[in-house]
Protein backbone atom coordinates (compact mmCIF):
# COMPACT_ATOMS: atom_id res chain seq x y z
CA UNK A 1 0.00 0.00 0.00
CA UNK A 2 2.81 2.36 0.95
CA UNK A 3 4.49 1.68 -2.42
CA UNK A 4 1.30 2.61 -4.29
CA UNK A 5 0.99 5.80 -2.28
CA UNK A 6 4.66 6.57 -2.85
CA UNK A 7 4.30 6.20 -6.62
CA UNK A 8 1.14 8.32 -6.63
CA UNK A 9 3.09 11.05 -4.86
CA UNK A 10 5.97 10.67 -7.30
CA UNK A 11 3.58 11.10 -10.23
CA UNK A 12 2.11 14.25 -8.68
CA UNK A 13 5.61 15.60 -8.09
CA UNK A 14 6.57 14.79 -11.68
CA UNK A 15 3.49 16.52 -13.04
CA UNK A 16 4.31 19.52 -10.88
CA UNK A 17 7.82 19.68 -12.27
CA UNK A 18 6.41 19.48 -15.77
CA UNK A 19 4.08 22.41 -15.10
CA UNK A 20 6.96 24.30 -13.52
CA UNK A 21 9.04 23.71 -16.63
CA UNK A 22 6.27 25.00 -18.90
CA UNK A 23 6.36 28.29 -17.04
CA UNK A 24 2.73 29.30 -17.42
CA UNK A 25 -0.09 29.10 -14.96
CA UNK A 26 -2.05 25.93 -15.68
CA UNK A 27 -5.31 27.77 -15.17
CA UNK A 28 -4.32 30.69 -17.32
CA UNK A 29 -6.97 31.61 -19.85
CA UNK A 30 -6.45 32.38 -23.51
CA UNK A 31 -6.97 36.06 -22.92
CA UNK A 32 -3.56 36.44 -21.30
CA UNK A 33 -0.49 36.95 -23.39
CA UNK A 34 2.88 37.54 -21.90
CA UNK A 35 5.24 37.74 -24.81
CA UNK A 36 5.51 36.90 -28.48
CA UNK A 37 1.84 37.64 -29.07
CA UNK A 38 0.24 40.62 -30.74
CA UNK A 39 -2.80 40.67 -28.49
CA UNK A 40 -6.51 40.83 -29.12
CA UNK A 41 -8.23 42.01 -32.29
CA UNK A 42 -9.97 45.32 -31.38
CA UNK A 43 -12.91 44.54 -33.64
CA UNK A 44 -13.78 40.88 -33.04
CA UNK A 45 -11.95 40.38 -29.71
CA UNK A 46 -10.31 37.25 -31.10
CA UNK A 47 -6.55 36.55 -30.90
CA UNK A 48 -4.87 38.88 -33.42
CA UNK A 49 -2.27 37.87 -35.96
CA UNK A 50 0.94 39.57 -37.07
CA UNK A 51 -0.25 38.96 -40.65
CA UNK A 52 -3.12 41.43 -40.39
CA UNK A 53 -1.59 44.69 -39.29
CA UNK A 54 -2.73 48.24 -39.94
CA UNK A 55 -0.95 51.45 -38.95
CA UNK A 56 -3.10 54.36 -37.92
CA UNK A 57 -1.67 57.70 -36.70
CA UNK A 58 1.77 56.13 -36.29
CA UNK A 59 0.57 53.20 -34.23
CA UNK A 60 0.25 49.63 -35.45
CA UNK A 61 -2.86 47.63 -34.63
CA UNK A 62 -3.21 43.90 -35.18
CA UNK A 63 -6.37 42.09 -36.25
CA UNK A 64 -7.66 38.57 -36.63
CA UNK A 65 -8.68 38.83 -40.30
CA UNK A 66 -8.66 41.31 -43.26
CA UNK A 67 -12.36 42.08 -42.77
CA UNK A 68 -11.64 43.47 -39.32
CA UNK A 69 -9.08 45.88 -40.81
CA UNK A 70 -11.73 47.19 -43.19
CA UNK A 71 -14.20 47.51 -40.34
CA UNK A 72 -11.62 49.38 -38.26
CA UNK A 73 -10.87 51.81 -41.10
CA UNK A 74 -14.52 52.92 -41.18
CA UNK A 75 -14.37 54.35 -37.64
CA UNK A 76 -10.96 53.90 -35.94
CA UNK A 77 -11.83 56.03 -32.89
CA UNK A 78 -14.71 53.74 -32.01
CA UNK A 79 -12.25 50.88 -31.48
CA UNK A 80 -9.26 52.85 -30.20
CA UNK A 81 -11.34 54.35 -27.39
CA UNK A 82 -11.95 50.81 -26.13
CA UNK A 83 -8.26 50.06 -25.74
CA UNK A 84 -6.98 50.96 -22.27
CA UNK A 85 -3.21 51.03 -21.92
CA UNK A 86 -2.16 51.05 -18.28
CA UNK A 87 1.34 51.11 -16.79
CA UNK A 88 1.08 49.03 -13.64
CA UNK A 89 3.93 49.27 -11.17
CA UNK A 90 4.34 46.69 -8.40
CA UNK A 91 6.26 47.59 -5.27
CA UNK A 92 6.68 46.48 -1.64
CA UNK A 93 3.71 46.33 -0.78
CA UNK A 94 1.21 47.58 -3.32
CA UNK A 95 0.35 48.38 -6.91
CA UNK A 96 0.12 51.69 -8.71
CA UNK A 97 -2.38 52.75 -9.98
CA UNK A 98 -4.80 51.27 -7.51
CA UNK A 99 -7.57 50.60 -8.36
CA UNK A 100 -7.51 50.13 -12.11
CA UNK A 101 -10.89 51.16 -13.46
CA UNK A 102 -12.08 50.07 -16.92
CA UNK A 103 -15.38 49.51 -18.68
CA UNK A 104 -16.85 46.19 -19.72
CA UNK A 105 -15.74 45.39 -23.26
CA UNK A 106 -12.47 47.34 -22.99
CA UNK A 107 -9.27 45.70 -24.14
CA UNK A 108 -6.90 46.19 -21.22
CA UNK A 109 -3.20 46.33 -21.98
CA UNK A 110 -1.10 46.17 -18.84
CA UNK A 111 2.55 47.10 -18.96
CA UNK A 112 3.87 45.74 -15.70
CA UNK A 113 7.11 46.75 -14.00
CA UNK A 114 8.58 46.27 -10.55
CA UNK A 115 10.13 49.03 -8.46
CA UNK A 116 12.12 46.85 -6.07
CA UNK A 117 12.10 43.04 -5.98
CA UNK A 118 10.36 40.35 -8.03
CA UNK A 119 6.58 40.53 -7.74
CA UNK A 120 3.69 38.61 -9.20
CA UNK A 121 0.48 39.96 -10.65
CA UNK A 122 -2.40 37.57 -10.12
CA UNK A 123 -6.00 38.24 -11.10
CA UNK A 124 -7.84 34.99 -10.58
CA UNK A 125 -11.04 35.87 -12.43
CA UNK A 126 -9.11 36.77 -15.59
CA UNK A 127 -6.67 33.87 -15.38
CA UNK A 128 -3.68 36.18 -15.09
CA UNK A 129 -0.57 35.13 -13.21
CA UNK A 130 2.77 36.61 -14.24
CA UNK A 131 5.92 37.47 -12.37
CA UNK A 132 8.02 40.52 -13.06
CA UNK A 133 11.59 41.10 -11.97
CA UNK A 134 13.00 44.50 -11.12
CA UNK A 135 14.06 46.21 -14.33
CA UNK A 136 11.86 44.00 -16.48
CA UNK A 137 8.63 44.88 -18.31
CA UNK A 138 5.87 42.35 -18.91
CA UNK A 139 2.94 43.03 -21.20
CA UNK A 140 -0.44 41.47 -20.67
CA UNK A 141 -3.59 41.98 -22.65
CA UNK A 142 -7.07 40.85 -21.81
CA UNK A 143 -10.66 41.62 -22.60
CA UNK A 144 -12.54 43.03 -19.63
CA UNK A 145 -15.65 40.92 -20.12
CA UNK A 146 -16.62 40.32 -16.49
CA UNK A 147 -18.17 43.13 -14.47
CA UNK A 148 -17.16 43.53 -10.84
CA UNK A 149 -14.41 44.32 -8.40
CA UNK A 150 -11.49 41.93 -8.52
CA UNK A 151 -8.43 41.56 -6.33
CA UNK A 152 -4.99 41.93 -7.83
CA UNK A 153 -2.59 40.11 -5.55
CA UNK A 154 1.13 39.47 -5.57
CA UNK A 155 1.82 35.82 -6.31
CA UNK A 156 5.57 35.86 -5.58
CA UNK A 157 6.81 36.14 -2.00
CA UNK A 158 8.25 39.65 -1.72
CA UNK A 159 8.77 40.22 2.02
CA UNK A 160 6.91 40.20 5.31
CA UNK A 161 4.19 42.49 3.93
CA UNK A 162 3.51 40.15 1.00
CA UNK A 163 0.11 39.09 2.32
CA UNK A 164 -1.00 42.73 2.48
CA UNK A 165 0.03 43.47 -1.10
CA UNK A 166 -3.26 43.89 -2.84
CA UNK A 167 -4.70 46.04 -5.57
CA UNK A 168 -8.06 46.28 -7.27
CA UNK A 169 -9.43 45.93 -10.78
CA UNK A 170 -12.85 47.48 -11.22
CA UNK A 171 -14.74 46.62 -14.39
CA UNK A 172 -17.78 48.87 -14.72
CA UNK A 173 -20.88 48.14 -16.77
Amino acid at each position, binding site marked *: MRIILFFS*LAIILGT*GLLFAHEGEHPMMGEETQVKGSVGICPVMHEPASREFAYTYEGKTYYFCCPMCIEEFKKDPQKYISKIKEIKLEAFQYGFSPDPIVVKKGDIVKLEITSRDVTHGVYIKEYGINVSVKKGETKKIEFLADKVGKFDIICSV*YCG*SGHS*KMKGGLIVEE
Partner: protein
Amino acid sequence: MIKTLKDKKNLVIILLVLLFLIKVPQEGIKFFLWVLEGIFLCFIFDFLINKFFFKRDILPNSAIISGFIVSGILDYRQPWFILVTFCFLAILSKHIIKFKDKHIFNPANFALFLAALFKIPLSWNIESNIFLIIIFGLFFAYTYKKFFHILGFLTFFIGLFSVFKVNPLGLISWFFVFIMLIEPKTSGYGNLRGFIFGGIAAIASFLIFKLIPQYDPNVLSLFSVNLLNPVLEKINNFFS
Protein backbone atom coordinates in the same frame (compact mmCIF):
# COMPACT_ATOMS: atom_id res chain seq x y z
CA MET B 1 -4.75 24.80 31.54
CA ILE B 2 -1.08 24.85 32.58
CA LYS B 3 -0.71 21.28 31.31
CA THR B 4 -2.09 22.39 27.95
CA LEU B 5 0.31 25.33 27.79
CA LYS B 6 3.26 23.09 28.68
CA ASP B 7 2.78 21.16 25.45
CA LYS B 8 4.78 23.17 22.90
CA LYS B 9 2.58 22.01 20.05
CA ASN B 10 -0.38 23.62 21.77
CA LEU B 11 1.58 26.86 22.05
CA VAL B 12 2.28 26.75 18.33
CA ILE B 13 -1.44 26.22 17.75
CA ILE B 14 -2.24 29.20 20.02
CA LEU B 15 0.13 31.39 17.99
CA LEU B 16 -1.43 30.20 14.73
CA VAL B 17 -4.93 30.89 16.06
CA LEU B 18 -3.88 34.43 17.03
CA LEU B 19 -2.31 35.08 13.63
CA PHE B 20 -5.41 33.68 11.96
CA LEU B 21 -7.77 35.83 14.02
CA ILE B 22 -5.75 38.97 13.24
CA LYS B 23 -6.08 38.27 9.52
CA VAL B 24 -9.77 37.32 9.42
CA PRO B 25 -11.17 40.89 9.58
CA GLN B 26 -8.95 41.92 6.65
CA GLU B 27 -9.68 38.93 4.42
CA GLY B 28 -13.24 38.01 5.31
CA ILE B 29 -15.41 34.96 5.62
CA LYS B 30 -13.92 33.02 2.72
CA PHE B 31 -10.48 33.07 4.34
CA PHE B 32 -12.05 32.07 7.66
CA LEU B 33 -13.78 29.04 6.14
CA TRP B 34 -10.77 28.16 4.00
CA VAL B 35 -8.47 27.88 7.02
CA LEU B 36 -11.02 26.00 9.13
CA GLU B 37 -11.49 23.53 6.32
CA GLY B 38 -7.72 23.15 5.94
CA ILE B 39 -7.37 22.30 9.63
CA PHE B 40 -10.30 19.90 9.52
CA LEU B 41 -9.03 18.14 6.40
CA CYS B 42 -5.49 17.63 7.69
CA PHE B 43 -6.83 16.40 11.01
CA ILE B 44 -9.24 13.94 9.40
CA PHE B 45 -6.73 12.66 6.82
CA ASP B 46 -4.10 12.06 9.49
CA PHE B 47 -6.58 10.46 11.85
CA LEU B 48 -7.92 8.12 9.15
CA ILE B 49 -4.49 7.14 7.80
CA ASN B 50 -3.31 6.38 11.33
CA LYS B 51 -6.46 4.42 12.15
CA PHE B 52 -6.84 2.34 9.00
CA PHE B 53 -3.28 1.90 7.72
CA PHE B 54 -1.29 1.88 10.94
CA LYS B 55 -4.01 0.76 13.39
CA ARG B 56 -3.28 3.64 15.77
CA ASP B 57 -5.84 5.82 17.49
CA ILE B 58 -4.20 9.23 17.68
CA LEU B 59 -5.62 12.73 17.89
CA PRO B 60 -3.05 14.40 15.67
CA ASN B 61 -2.08 17.84 16.99
CA SER B 62 0.67 18.16 14.42
CA ALA B 63 -1.90 17.75 11.63
CA ILE B 64 -3.73 20.80 12.99
CA ILE B 65 -0.51 22.78 12.66
CA SER B 66 0.01 21.47 9.13
CA GLY B 67 -3.58 22.41 8.28
CA PHE B 68 -3.08 25.94 9.58
CA ILE B 69 0.13 26.37 7.60
CA VAL B 70 -1.12 24.89 4.32
CA SER B 71 -4.40 26.80 4.30
CA GLY B 72 -2.88 29.96 5.81
CA ILE B 73 -0.25 30.19 3.08
CA LEU B 74 -2.15 28.91 0.04
CA ASP B 75 -4.22 31.61 -1.58
CA TYR B 76 -7.80 31.22 -0.38
CA ARG B 77 -9.27 32.42 -3.68
CA GLN B 78 -8.52 29.03 -5.19
CA PRO B 79 -11.15 26.33 -5.73
CA TRP B 80 -11.85 24.03 -2.78
CA PHE B 81 -10.41 20.95 -4.47
CA ILE B 82 -7.00 22.62 -4.38
CA LEU B 83 -7.15 22.78 -0.60
CA VAL B 84 -8.37 19.20 -0.30
CA THR B 85 -5.58 17.99 -2.61
CA PHE B 86 -2.74 19.79 -0.90
CA CYS B 87 -3.90 18.99 2.63
CA PHE B 88 -4.03 15.35 1.61
CA LEU B 89 -0.55 15.52 0.04
CA ALA B 90 0.87 17.15 3.17
CA ILE B 91 -0.37 14.33 5.38
CA LEU B 92 0.49 11.64 2.85
CA SER B 93 4.10 12.83 2.59
CA LYS B 94 4.42 12.50 6.36
CA HIS B 95 3.43 8.86 6.26
CA ILE B 96 5.23 7.60 3.19
CA ILE B 97 8.43 9.58 2.58
CA LYS B 98 10.55 8.39 5.44
CA PHE B 99 14.19 7.84 6.30
CA LYS B 100 15.03 5.66 9.28
CA ASP B 101 11.35 5.68 10.19
CA LYS B 102 11.19 9.49 10.42
CA HIS B 103 9.56 11.68 7.80
CA ILE B 104 12.05 13.71 5.80
CA PHE B 105 9.91 16.62 4.65
CA ASN B 106 8.09 19.21 6.68
CA PRO B 107 4.57 18.01 5.67
CA ALA B 108 3.03 21.45 5.14
CA ASN B 109 6.06 22.66 3.25
CA PHE B 110 6.03 19.59 1.03
CA ALA B 111 2.45 20.35 -0.02
CA LEU B 112 3.27 24.03 -0.53
CA PHE B 113 6.28 23.07 -2.62
CA LEU B 114 4.01 21.07 -4.92
CA ALA B 115 1.55 23.96 -5.02
CA ALA B 116 4.39 26.29 -6.01
CA LEU B 117 5.39 23.95 -8.83
CA PHE B 118 1.80 24.02 -10.09
CA LYS B 119 2.00 27.84 -9.96
CA ILE B 120 -0.74 28.15 -7.37
CA PRO B 121 -0.24 31.51 -5.63
CA LEU B 122 1.05 31.42 -2.07
CA SER B 123 -0.28 34.52 -0.36
CA TRP B 124 1.15 33.84 3.14
CA ASN B 125 -1.92 35.30 4.85
CA ILE B 126 -1.02 33.56 8.10
CA GLU B 127 2.02 35.86 8.41
CA SER B 128 -0.20 38.56 9.83
CA ASN B 129 1.85 39.96 12.73
CA ILE B 130 5.62 39.70 12.77
CA PHE B 131 5.96 40.86 16.39
CA LEU B 132 3.89 37.95 17.68
CA ILE B 133 5.79 35.58 15.41
CA ILE B 134 9.17 36.78 16.69
CA ILE B 135 8.17 36.73 20.38
CA PHE B 136 6.65 33.25 20.23
CA GLY B 137 9.32 32.14 17.76
CA LEU B 138 12.18 33.00 20.09
CA PHE B 139 10.49 30.97 22.79
CA PHE B 140 10.04 28.00 20.42
CA ALA B 141 13.66 28.25 19.28
CA TYR B 142 14.76 28.22 22.91
CA THR B 143 12.57 25.32 24.03
CA TYR B 144 13.16 23.21 20.90
CA LYS B 145 16.91 24.04 21.00
CA LYS B 146 16.87 25.47 17.47
CA PHE B 147 18.81 28.71 17.89
CA PHE B 148 21.63 27.43 15.71
CA HIS B 149 19.22 26.69 12.86
CA ILE B 150 18.06 30.29 12.98
CA LEU B 151 21.56 31.61 13.43
CA GLY B 152 22.80 29.65 10.40
CA PHE B 153 19.89 30.87 8.30
CA LEU B 154 20.17 34.53 9.31
CA THR B 155 23.98 34.61 8.93
CA PHE B 156 23.91 33.35 5.36
CA PHE B 157 20.67 35.08 4.38
CA ILE B 158 21.73 38.51 5.60
CA GLY B 159 25.30 38.00 4.39
CA LEU B 160 24.47 36.93 0.85
CA PHE B 161 21.69 39.46 0.28
CA SER B 162 23.82 42.29 1.69
CA VAL B 163 26.73 41.39 -0.61
CA PHE B 164 24.37 41.72 -3.58
CA LYS B 165 22.96 44.99 -2.22
CA VAL B 166 19.46 43.71 -1.59
CA ASN B 167 17.91 44.60 1.76
CA PRO B 168 17.62 41.19 3.47
CA LEU B 169 15.20 42.44 6.14
CA GLY B 170 12.80 43.50 3.42
CA LEU B 171 12.63 39.95 2.09
CA ILE B 172 12.86 37.73 5.11
CA SER B 173 9.81 35.76 6.21
CA TRP B 174 9.79 35.56 9.99
CA PHE B 175 6.98 33.04 9.89
CA PHE B 176 9.17 30.83 7.76
CA VAL B 177 12.18 31.25 10.05
CA PHE B 178 10.46 30.78 13.39
CA ILE B 179 7.73 28.30 12.53
CA MET B 180 8.56 26.33 9.40
CA LEU B 181 12.36 26.14 9.35
CA ILE B 182 12.64 24.91 12.93
CA GLU B 183 9.93 22.28 12.74
CA PRO B 184 11.29 19.79 15.29
CA LYS B 185 11.01 16.48 13.47
CA THR B 186 12.43 17.49 10.08
CA SER B 187 15.09 20.03 10.99
CA GLY B 188 17.28 17.74 13.09
CA TYR B 189 19.12 18.35 16.31
CA GLY B 190 22.61 19.48 17.22
CA ASN B 191 24.25 22.87 17.00
CA LEU B 192 26.48 22.14 14.02
CA ARG B 193 23.80 20.32 12.09
CA GLY B 194 21.37 23.10 12.91
CA PHE B 195 23.76 25.78 11.70
CA ILE B 196 24.46 23.88 8.46
CA PHE B 197 20.73 23.19 8.00
CA GLY B 198 19.87 26.88 8.37
CA GLY B 199 22.83 27.92 6.24
CA ILE B 200 21.90 25.64 3.35
CA ALA B 201 18.30 26.85 3.50
CA ALA B 202 19.51 30.45 3.31
CA ILE B 203 21.87 29.74 0.40
CA ALA B 204 19.10 27.89 -1.45
CA SER B 205 16.74 30.77 -0.75
CA PHE B 206 19.23 33.25 -2.15
CA LEU B 207 19.88 31.16 -5.28
CA ILE B 208 16.15 30.80 -5.92
CA PHE B 209 15.69 34.55 -5.47
CA LYS B 210 18.47 35.21 -7.97
CA LEU B 211 17.88 32.48 -10.55
CA ILE B 212 14.18 31.56 -10.47
CA PRO B 213 12.49 34.40 -8.56
CA GLN B 214 9.05 33.46 -9.84
CA TYR B 215 9.07 30.58 -7.33
CA ASP B 216 8.62 30.96 -3.61
CA PRO B 217 12.16 31.01 -2.16
CA ASN B 218 11.06 29.95 1.34
CA VAL B 219 9.15 26.88 0.34
CA LEU B 220 11.66 25.73 -2.27
CA SER B 221 14.64 26.25 0.00
CA LEU B 222 13.10 24.28 2.87
CA PHE B 223 12.22 21.50 0.47
CA SER B 224 15.85 21.43 -0.76
CA VAL B 225 17.34 21.31 2.71
CA ASN B 226 14.82 18.67 3.83
CA LEU B 227 15.95 16.62 0.86
CA LEU B 228 19.45 16.68 2.32
CA ASN B 229 18.29 15.41 5.71
CA PRO B 230 19.78 11.90 5.27
CA VAL B 231 23.16 13.48 4.39
CA LEU B 232 22.96 15.96 7.25
CA GLU B 233 22.30 13.13 9.65
CA LYS B 234 25.58 11.53 8.56
CA ILE B 235 27.44 14.82 9.17
CA ASN B 236 25.97 14.93 12.65
CA ASN B 237 26.97 11.33 13.35
CA PHE B 238 30.48 11.99 12.01
CA PHE B 239 31.08 14.87 14.41
CA SER B 240 29.45 13.33 17.46
